[in-house]
């Protein structure tokens, strides 16, 4: 089964003489319930492709299917609802809101969805405990270590039971030990929860965790 299918995806930045192709026609299939790494050097188009898969960036050409849904046919509102229910994201900068507690940050996707806060919190606690930060629920994210913040961001991505988890450079700010711990969690999401995990990285230390590796180079898939 295919989780994400890209057909001839192209994306350009700038206009006129400054127009640059970030993606030059991406044909890609990301298998369901696998951990896929999207790797490539800086400027290869990884971030652009990830943004398109997250549906926060619209391709200029080509078709995108996520779990069989043709994203090109959806308007912005429909995409927002789709994102909320199907895609969990862990950003490289994490973006945990410092004014909220860890628990409030984690339940944010459900708050956006309009779900009852106490029920959302009940759902969040086991996830936080599973990620070993159950004792940090009432802390401010600023009181957490980088590794703990990473886990809080992962917990937030898991909250809406999304089948697709997209992670942007999850290990870039972590040492080897914490990087491996983070990848173990993501791997566990695939094996235990049957989720599809897509990781954008150029950290070769974590390649061994991958079920599937996609190489991106100069806006095209390599090989």
């Amino acid at each position, binding site marked *: 089964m295919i989780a994400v299918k890209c057909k001839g995806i192209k994306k350009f930045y700038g206009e006129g003489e400054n127009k640059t192709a970030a993606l030059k026609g991406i044909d890609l299939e990301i298998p369901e319930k696998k951990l896929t790494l999207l790797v490539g050097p800086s400027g290869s188009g990884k*971030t652009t492709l*990830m*943004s398109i898969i*997250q549906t*926060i*960036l619209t391709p200029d050409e080509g078709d995108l299917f996520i779990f069989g849904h043709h994203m090109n046919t959806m308007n912005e*509102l429909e995409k*927002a*609802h*789709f*994102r*909320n*229910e199907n895609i969990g*994201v862990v*950003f*490289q*900068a994490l*973006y945990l*809101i*410092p*004014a*909220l507690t860890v628990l*409030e940050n984690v339940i*944010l*996707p459900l*708050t*956006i*969805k309009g779900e009852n*806060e106490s029920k959302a919190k009940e759902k969040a606690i086991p996830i936080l405990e599973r990620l070993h930060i159950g004792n940090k629920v009432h802390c401010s994210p600023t009181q957490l270590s980088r590794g703990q913040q990473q886990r809080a961001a992962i917990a*937030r991505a898991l909250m*809406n039971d999304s089948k697709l988890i997209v992670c*942007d*450079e999850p290990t870039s700010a972590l040492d080897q030990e914490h990087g491996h711990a983070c990848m173990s969690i993501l791997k566990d999401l695939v094996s235990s929860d049957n989720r599809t995990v897509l990781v954008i990285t150029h950290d070769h230390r974590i390649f061994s965790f991958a079920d599937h590796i996609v190489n991106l180079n100069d806006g095209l898939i390599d090989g």
Partner: protein
Amino acid sequence: MILTAFKMLIGNKAAFIGVIFGIFLAVLLISQQSAIYLGLVSRSYRIVTNISAPNIWVIDPATQGEDLIRSMPKDYLQYVKSIPNVEWAVPVTYLLLPLTTPSGIFTVSEVYGVDDKTLVGIPNLLEGNIQDLYRNGGVILDSNSAENLLAITLPNGEKAPLKLGDALEINGHRVVVAGIAKTTPGFFPQPVVFMINSQVEQFSGTNRIQYIVAKTRENADVQAILNQINSNKNMLGLTSKQLESRISDHFLKTGILINYGISVLLGMIIGFSIAGQIFYIMTLHNLCYYALIKALGGTEAMILKMIVFQAVVVGTIGYILGTGVTLLWGFAIKGTTLTFEFPWQLLLLTGFFAVIICIFMAALSVRKIFRLDPHMLMVNT
């Protein structure tokens, strides 16, 4: 998301306090200046407020306000009295006469002469007996003058207020304080003195009058009575409200309205510049989190609600603090000569300006939100 918006708002305490302070200052300036302005305007027509019994006032057509009064012959009174459905009509004189106290204080007093028979126009007395006005030289003095302006300085430096029975001199005539009353002060710190008309005539040497006040019978056609008064080109009949407007319109020719407008404008500029700018910076600071909300499935409408809610919260707090301090100020100066008038409509007016500031604040931020691209979260790492 409203709770999240609130937490994001108070999360940055310095900005939160800064925005509230900006709105507070703006509201304080607008409401306080408005209250002072309204106080001054209401003082301009205080004769109408102080003498509330009549519903019709007759003046010379040239009369505009207390600084521009043309007197009328006393016999005009008979004309007004003769109009059908006029229940009663009495003269009121208004003159500025020199006043001297035994301790040597010299000033100019505002002297109101009231009808000998009816005493219409005499304010409620704080002390004394109204019948004592008929005693030779009997006058009623305003309480502020008795306690402050004309108070006797004792040898030890303390001030002793004038009391009933104390003697004064008005235009060279000896008078005695027969009563003390609370009156609306004028623009200048001048004593306000009430006496019977016959005594005013004796003191001033003229029997001309400045106002005729009249009361119409119940269910009478007031406009028809005014038309009949105005058919005499030497008289102008007005209702109490019309006279208030005429006097205040004359007063506004001093340019005070422009000064007041400038004060309100300054308040708005303070609101826009301090509150608007800090709120905008706060939104910029939180921009990545709004982008996050968008990326996690939030809509622009949702973020718009959050911004508007934040603007409403700071606006409401700033408004309550601003009007609260203005009201406290009004309470603190109650009974003094400082002007202050705070009708409930002023709450609405100040609220309106606070809403304008909040809309400006929110609009600045919302512009940024609508241009927000969650893709920035992937790029700005």
